[in-house]
């Protein structure tokens, strides 16, 4: 009984929203990239880098908003590595993504040492202020979802993104610049992953911790797939995963072994992906480099 009241308390619900925010934002980032045909498993690393840069900028300027901005800009730039490697040089997109994740994991630890002269955790910096019950990033995250739906399904740009991800040669034949669309989309995905990271370091906490994304980039990818590559689907899936994380936090210290409790979000993810959703079809041209003239 006590467990149930704990689970369905108001606190759990608000914590669900906080936990779902970075997942939803990063999932929308992944959505832009994948809808244009570029696999982006670099979300994890892009988030981690964003979280780190946000703290660094806030540390030096004292202004958390600049930290947030820094995370967006750096996320976008960092994603350009993935973009150039996979779009211009036609490299394997999964390999490129893995490389970015490793670069981010190592790079942040290294820079943490240089800038803060510590390992593990940075100093506390000025975090984002509360707006009502939540940090601003939570509202921004919701906005991002609605904007993504509008952009992808109502605007000419969105139609072009979808055509590029499904049949780039058809898009090319009507004069759409396939590579340009893909660069833009990977850029957007980096910016959003940076935002998601800043939410973790300056929204939820006020410092950077080594490996603080803890697989959230991958869970965001799962949310994107679970949501069948649609913004609202991704939001729903993120809320579900966010809920499982919130429950996990609430259940800690209630006599259940923590190891079990900590497994909850991941078990949720696996069950969700393993078939609760039915068939989820990715964009057709995903992962395929575009070569003009080749059929």
């Amino acid at each position, binding site marked *: 009984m006590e467990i149930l009241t704990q689970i369905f308390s108001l606190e759990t619900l608000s914590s669900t929203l906080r936990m779902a925010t970075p997942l939803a934002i990063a999932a929308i980032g992944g959505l832009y990239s994948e809808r244009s045909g570029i696999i982006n498993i670099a979300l994890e690393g892009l988030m981690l880098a964003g979280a780190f840069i946000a703290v660094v900028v806030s540390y030096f300027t004292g202004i958390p908003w600049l930290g947030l901005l820094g995370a967006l800009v750096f996320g976008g730039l960092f994603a350009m590595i993935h973009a150039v490697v996979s779009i211009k040089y036609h490299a394997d997109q999964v390999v490129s993504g893995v490389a970015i994740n490793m670069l981010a994991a190592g790079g942040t630890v290294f820079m943490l040492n240089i800038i803060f002269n510590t390992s593990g955790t940075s100093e506390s910096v000025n975090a984002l202020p509360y707006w009502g019950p939540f940090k601003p990033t939570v509202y921004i995250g919701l906005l991002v979802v609605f904007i993504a739906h509008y952009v992808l399904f*109502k*605007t*000419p740009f969105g*139609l*072009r993104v*979808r*055509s590029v991800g*499904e*049949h780039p*040669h*058809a*898009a090319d*034949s*009507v*004069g*759409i610049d396939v590579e340009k669309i893909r660069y833009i989309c990977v850029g957007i995905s980096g910016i959003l992953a940076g935002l998601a990271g800043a939410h973790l370091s300056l929204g939820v906490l006020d410092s950077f911790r080594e490996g603080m994304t803890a697989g959230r980039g991958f869970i965001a990818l799962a949310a994107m797939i679970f949501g069948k590559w649609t913004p609202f689907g991704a939001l729903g899936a993120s809320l579900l995963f966010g809920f499982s994380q919130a429950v996990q936090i609430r259940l800690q210290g209630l006599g259940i072994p923590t190891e079990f409790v900590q497994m909850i979000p991941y078990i949720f993810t696996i069950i969700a992906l393993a078939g609760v959703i039915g068939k989820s079809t990715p964009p*057709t041209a995903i992962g395929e480099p575009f070569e003009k*003239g080749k*059929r």
Partner: protein
Amino acid sequence: MEPILEMKAITKRFPGVLANDNVNLDLYQGEIHALIGENGAGKSTLMSVLFGMYTPEEGEIFYKGQKLDIDGPQDAIELGIGMVHQHFMLVPTLTVAENIILGSEPKRGLKIDIEKAIAKVNELANKFGLQVDATAKVKDIPVGMQQRVEILKALYRGAEVLILDEPTAVLTPQEVEGLYQIMESLTEQGKSIIFITHKLKEVLRISDRITVLRKGKGIGTVTTSETNQKELARMMVGREVLLEVEKEEADFGEVLVEVSNLSAFNDRGMEALNSVSFQIRAGEILGIAGVEGNGQTELVEVLTGLREATAGEYNLHGDSLYNHSARKIKEAKVAHIPEDRHKHGLVLDYTVEDNLVLGYHYREPFAKGINLNFNNLAEHANRLIPEYDIRPQNKEALARSLSGGNQQKIIVAREFDLGPEFLIASQPTRGVDVGAIEFIHRRILEQRDEGKAVLLVSAELPEVISLSDRIAVMYEGEIVDIVDAAEATEEKLGILMAGGSLEGGIANGS
């Protein structure tokens, strides 16, 4: 009258190849101008030059009296030149209207004005008699409608000149007839059409003038009403071509293939074959005629082990092959020329040499134990390539790089060389040029004359009639009648294909 479009002395070279050699083409407004030639004759290159995808080394293009400098398809589209590609350039997951407006979307504020788009599509569709469902997704509509969507795409962008690249290759005879009507309606309203094909009958039926290319050179332009199939074939191939199949008197042996009450489902789980029965004797070709989608594909798949039957019997030489695996059926000496050579006949990224043993690669002499015997593979290829006139004569070439006709010859070579008892040929000449058609027909007849049983499935009625000894007509998964080929005409078969009977005419839907 001045021509609307003139291509003068176009020369286009690729490394080692003269793809277009001083070619001329002129097009008048309201004209259907056919561009014919065998695969590799330079038709596509010439059109790519016109569409701005290649820059010619020499030559000029005039459009409405002005010299053109086309740089890229975008320029061509803006000038009013539209192209309907042989492989449709449509996004399956988008709707018809979305595909048509893609790249030049009508807007209201930031949003696509989808109502306006649909209205515009319907308006164009009505004007030119191109029936489409603007809100349906492209993946859900039939091929014929997809082609109409492609034409609308060009018209939406203001095309005055339409290039149709092999537009009939993917269509059923009925859809081809529909396309002709559309082409006529387009030219009546002032559009001009360049129609690329290698099917002579189509050209004679629909075009006003014909330009023939051979090996990159313009052989000449003739007025359709003043020419005939024989002349065109000679211009295309450069020698006399046997258009009529010369067939020896049949010498039937005992019944080799016996199929009775065979039934099967299609991919969607619906009944596709309903109690089909027939026999084929040694030295006999049984043709299967029918509108596509009436069970022919499923029948061939069941007979070759690619699909499971739900009931019936299937015997070769009295031994049952019913629901045996594809490999077992092959081992029983059943050869198969599949309907879709890219999907079932070849691995496009393998070499000619490897493709020539595909499916037999595990046997002696191509393999020894678990190892391939490369010497024997090479020897096999070296023998078959000249014997079956596969061009280029290079066993290391990837199958992908060969023309459709030569790809088909690889399959014919592989399947015929091992001495089949029962040969199943499904659409053996689809997308294949005149010279190769003649070659394939001759080889199929040779098999028959050697006493093999042949099952020939083809959407081309003249092919079925001229090659077969008997013709079975399929309608809605059943064989409605089997007629003697000597007495069969296109009209008679047409009645049966529509579900009618030769006694009572077309019975309403039954």
